């Protein structure tokens, strides 16, 4: 059953290959169904391989499938191989599962779009790249997938490229990711230089021969790559702008899967982080800082997708916090549950945006609960799940991270706790503004706009909502903090167990932590409900500094973007036109002026030429005669 592993990334790639020439002909909705079925096939294959892996003894749950020798130059050998182990299969399972649901949703969401087939072509290519990233057995193939998802992200952010904001958001994402990718590349050079290999298994086996400074450098450089891809401080602003893409894209790429690739990479290199504790510490601190920063900004945004984007940044910070302190299981657990409820929230937001005729401002929503009951209920579940309300998924996963953080460093715990309260608050605000209160969209549209009749979307869109809502409720079951119920932790032990942070808690302590988590969630929910019930105007709760995202984007623009633009203008004028063009034009002018003199020689009279010939003859003769005499 394990041998079927190569089919997992192949199915979506096949979909891509078919859609490139035939997508337009298949049209709407056939192209969408093809793409969805391909991803669903991939999901089913993943389940089969997963089951095959599960039947093996825990210590033997490792299978490397080599396709072919990819690069072989002297000592530098890289195979195209897949690494099937509990970590990669966990990732593959939720990536394909969530992708299939979001593809299904997209059939409804994109039905009026003229570029319907192109959308699914990119989506399939994305899923294929993501699976290569996750399943790869070496750094280089992971990097291939890493760049593949990056380019698909660019295509899909700029999907409506005729809008200038979408085009520039795509470029922004690309440029921020370049910074991170440079780190990844240099890390690979260093890894190969120190260990002579890029295969995960070989590299990890040779780590004892590598000094701690090198390992710290490798870990930090790979973390730089992860910071770019997963939108952490200081490379996070692109994710907020990435919301220019269609909402299913935001749900799939910029919430559930691609942005978690950085966390996955950190978990994958856990043997390196174990030997480079300083780097791990940096990761935890950056993660905690990002978690708090993202959460504070999300509290004051009006655009529903911006709220969710900053929430994603914050939750990713949480995952890095977990990975940095060595709580890899907690990081993966949070990543899984987050994929469910954040995809759910984005898809719910997509339904609302769809019903509101592409309006995204929560201040112009309101009272949609009656008009859109399914969306409202599922969004409510998503809010409570991410807020950490027992017994939904977020309660268990966030609690797991917080408990580990407490044992590692109480400062990290406090930051995590504040973030947890804010998380429950800002999504509560989004829920209250969207689904309760006055029907603000009625008055907004009375000034000449089209009449709106918001309603729940058709089944292709509501089925994914319901399924994801169900998963957001029960996903906690895979890793309950009771003995014999920590299924995910035991499943991941062969990969991360040896290098994991293993705090011990008494049952009483666990209850205290659970109570504290409940308190945080309840506090956030209560504040959100009391502040935003029946009103949409509370300037005191939305300080300008938070609305403007701490002015960080503005500062980047002033300090870096303006500076480089001015530098470019100087070089364009002085260096390019005056120096380089001047040199080229100068050579031309030189030949022109010398030719103006020399052309006088060409008189056009035959006798002049004949005289020249004679003169030459005389000269040659004179020379010969002078030599012989």
């Amino acid at each position: 059953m394990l041998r079927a592993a190569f089919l997992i990334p192949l199915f979506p790639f096949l979909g891509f290959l078919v859609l490139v020439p035939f997508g337009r002909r298949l049209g709407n909705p056939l192209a969408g169904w093809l793409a969805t079925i391909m991803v669903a096939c991939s999901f089913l294959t993943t389940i089969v391989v997963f089951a095959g892996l599960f039947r093996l003894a825990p210590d033997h749950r490792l299978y490397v499938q080599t396709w072919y020798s990819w690069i072989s130059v002297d000592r530098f050998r890289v195979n195209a191989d897949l690494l099937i182990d509990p970590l990669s299969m966990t990732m593959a399972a939720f990536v394909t599962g969530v992708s299939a649901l979001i593809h299904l949703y997209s059939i409804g969401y994109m039905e009026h779009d003229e570029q319907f087939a192109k959308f699914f072509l990119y989506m399939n290519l994305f899923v294929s790249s993501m699976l290569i990233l996750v399943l790869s057995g070496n750094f280089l193939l992971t990097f291939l997938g890493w760049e593949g998802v990056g380019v698909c992200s660019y295509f899909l952010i700029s999907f409506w490229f005729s809008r200038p904001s979408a085009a520039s958001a795509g470029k922004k994402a690309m440029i921020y990711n370049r910074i991170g990718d440079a780190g990844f590349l240099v890390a690979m050079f260093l890894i190969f230089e120190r260990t002579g290999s890029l295969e995960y298994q070989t590299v990890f086996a040779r780590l004892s021969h590598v000094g701690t400074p090198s390992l710290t450098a490798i870990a930090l450089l790979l973390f730089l790559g992860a910071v770019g891809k997963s939108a952490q401080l200081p490379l996070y602003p692109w994710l907020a702008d990435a919301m220019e893409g269609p909402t299913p894209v935001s749900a799939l790429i910029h919430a559930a899967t691609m942005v978690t690739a950085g966390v996955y990479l950190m978990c994958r290199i856990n043997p390196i982080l174990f030997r480079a504790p300083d780097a791990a510490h940096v990761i935890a601190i950056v993660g905690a800082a990002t978690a708090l920063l993202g959460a504070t900004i999300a509290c004051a945004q009006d655009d529903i997708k911006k709220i969710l984007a900053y929430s994603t940044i914050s939750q990713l910070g949480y995952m890095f916090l977990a990975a940095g302190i060595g709580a890899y299981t907690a990081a993966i657990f949070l990543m899984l549950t987050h994929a469910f409820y954040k995809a759910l929230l984005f898809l719910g937001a997509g339904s609302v945006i769809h019903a509101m005729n592409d309006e995204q401002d929560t201040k112009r929503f309101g009272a949609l609960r009656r008009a859109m009951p399914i969306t409202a209920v599922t969004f409510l579940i998503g809010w409570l799940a991410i807020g950490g309300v027992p017994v939904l998924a977020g309660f268990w996963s966030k609690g797991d991270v917080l408990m580990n953080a407490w044992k590692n460093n109480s400062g990290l715990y406090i930051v995590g706790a504040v973030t947890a309260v804010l998380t429950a608050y800002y999504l509560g605000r989004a829920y209250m503004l969207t689904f309760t209160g006055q029907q603000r969209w009625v008055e907004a549209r009375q000034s000449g706009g089209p009449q709106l009749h918001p309603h729940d979307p058709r089944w292709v869109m509501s089925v994914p909502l319901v399924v994801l809502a169900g998963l957001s409720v029960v996903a906690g079951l895979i890793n309950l903090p009771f003995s014999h119920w920590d299924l995910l932790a035991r499943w991941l032990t062969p990969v991360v167990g040896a290098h994991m942070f293993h705090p011990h808690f008494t049952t009483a302590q666990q209850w205290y932590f659970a109570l504290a988590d409940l308190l945080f969630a309840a506090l956030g929910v209560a504040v959100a409900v009391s502040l935003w019930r029946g009103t949409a105007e509370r300037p005191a709760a939305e300080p300008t500094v938070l609305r403007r995202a701490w002015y960080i984007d503005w500062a980047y623009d002033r300090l870096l973007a303006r500076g480089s633009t001015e530098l470019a203008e100087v070089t364009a004028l002085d260096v390019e036109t005056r120096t380089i063009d001047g040199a080229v034009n100068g050579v031309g002018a030189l030949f022109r002026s010398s030719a103006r003199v020399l052309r006088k020689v060409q008189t056009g009279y035959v006798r002049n030429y004949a005289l020249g010939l004679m003169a030459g003859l005389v000269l040659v003769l004179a020379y010969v005669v002078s030599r012989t005499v």
Partner: protein
Amino acid sequence: MSVNASWYLTLAAVLFTIGAVGLLVRRNVLVMFMCVELMLNAANLTFVTFARTLNDIGGQSEVFFVLVVAAAEVVVGLGIIVAIFRRRVGATADDIHNLKG
């Protein structure tokens, strides 16, 4: 009185000079052309003279090559001259200076 080689060489030099001066001073294309032929044949005469003097057949055979090339050159040159006559009256070389720089 035997005619020794220097007479022939002197004759060749005289012919060559007549040809060269003629080429330079005449304006009629046809005459200039004949002057070129004169120079070529002056060269031929020196070849034959030296072949006789040095008892080497090489010089005489070289003359055949020159004659062949000269014949070919006459074909091309006369062709050009005929073409010029067709387009304009007279064949004064100085009137044809379209390639003036």
